[in-house]
């Protein structure tokens, strides 16, 4: 099989640009997801009235609808209601909306894994509720839940491949365009796979390293 290297070299800048957009979307989507997830799980832990119910509705809504539909709603639906946002903003909000519920569930399972006696032990040295969360519960919850948080991060980076549907020139979108224009299907898809690997493999290694670090105290190597 012949590979058109000339083509690959000539489209490299296009892919490079798209890769940066993917990274940007993935980064902000993941970061906001983590924040939303943490806040939601703390609301669930304290069983704060009303907010707790809202979080539960949000989690079900977000986990049980496809990202594509969420994006269409944000991009086309809200415009009908007079709310217009840029494609990038929509995409990041969409990713955060989806990721937030996954992260929230991951944090929740970690928090629930912290034994009741740990909490009593913390209370008995006079810690306040906030101190208990910060010094006793969250660090242990993190150690337990780190593998699922890492999986969610990688999942969200991969989910960016859908946001091309609302006209963002991320990797998937650019690849489809390139195929449409030049019919170099194999080379284009090869570039696409390579680009995702270049982005996600280091992320994956970073997360594995982080997981070891976070879990060392409690679980050893």
């Amino acid at each position: 099989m012949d590979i058109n290297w000339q083509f690959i070299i000539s489209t490299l800048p296009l892919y490079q640009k798209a890769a940066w957009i993917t990274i940007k979307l993935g980064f902000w989507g993941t970061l906001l997801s983590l924040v939303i997830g943490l806040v939601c799980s703390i609301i669930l832990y304290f069983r704060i009235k009303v907010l707790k119910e809202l979080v539960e509705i949000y989690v079900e809504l977000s986990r049980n609808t496809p990202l594509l539909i969420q994006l269409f709603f944000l991009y086309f639906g809200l415009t009908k209601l007079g709310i217009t946002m840029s494609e990038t903003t929509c995409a990041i909000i969409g990713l955060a909306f989806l990721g937030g519920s996954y992260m929230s569930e991951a944090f929740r399972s970690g928090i629930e894994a912290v034994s009741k006696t740990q909490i009593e032990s913390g209370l008995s040295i006079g810690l306040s509720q906030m101190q208990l969360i910060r010094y006793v519960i969250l660090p242990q919850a993190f150690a337990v839940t780190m593998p699922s948080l890492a999986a969610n991060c990688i999942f969200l980076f991969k989910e960016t491949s859908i946001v091309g549907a609302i006209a963002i020139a991320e990797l998937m979108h650019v690849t489809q365009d390139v195929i449409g224009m030049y019919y170099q299907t194999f080379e284009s898809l090869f570039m696409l796979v390579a680009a995702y690997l270049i982005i996600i493999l280091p992320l994956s290694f970073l997360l594995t390293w982080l997981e070891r670090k976070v879990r060392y105290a409690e679980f050893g190597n």
Partner: protein
Amino acid sequence: MNKENHQVLLEIKDLHKEYDTRTVLDGIHLRVHKGEVIVVLGPSGCGKSTLLRCLNGLESIQGGDIQFDGESLVGSNVDWQKTRQKIGMVFQNYDLFPHMTVIENILLGPIKVQKREKKEVMEQAAQLLEKVGLSDRKDSYPRQLSGGQKQRIAIVRALCMNPEIMLFDEVTAALDPEMVREVLDVILGLAKQGMTMMIVTHEMGFAQAVADRILFIDEGRVCEISEPKEFFTNPKTERAQQFLNIFQF
């Protein structure tokens, strides 16, 4: 050793505790004097542990009063964060924080809760660790320690808050027999120094050695309060006699 003329540190009056409809503590009365060691004995499920847990607010109570240091520990306006600093508690399963090293475990309360100087707390921690023979383990994680070592650290963690009373809730129940001794020795040492303590245990020999008074509870009621010698040789109630017979072969 009679400490009944010492100042009363803790007074429990007609304490009632219920879980749903089941009565766990049914009118407990007790006065603990400064420097006194009370060992709480009784069959499983009689309410011994619950009694200790009521004293530092880990369980709510349904009736009666607890006075500690002249202040009531009943009602919604008790400042438990403040009170718990003066009431050290050690649990059956050690419950060291697994994500922190030994020294971090010990420093957490004094520094974050009591806002003390790190340097000063470090010195105290070093002294206490020395006393329990674990100076060399201060940078270990709990998982790297044996049960007996963990329990000694848990005691140091509570002591470093400078409590006025220590509560021990079956602290040797989860330990191998060989490790029981090293923990009990630490508690005996504390008794010698005049620490006020309430100890729930199933170690009869230890109870006899350490106690100023034995509190025998059955079905949530105080059956007997007496000095250890009297309790072990000549118990007043039949229930206590039965209980003690279990430990004889």
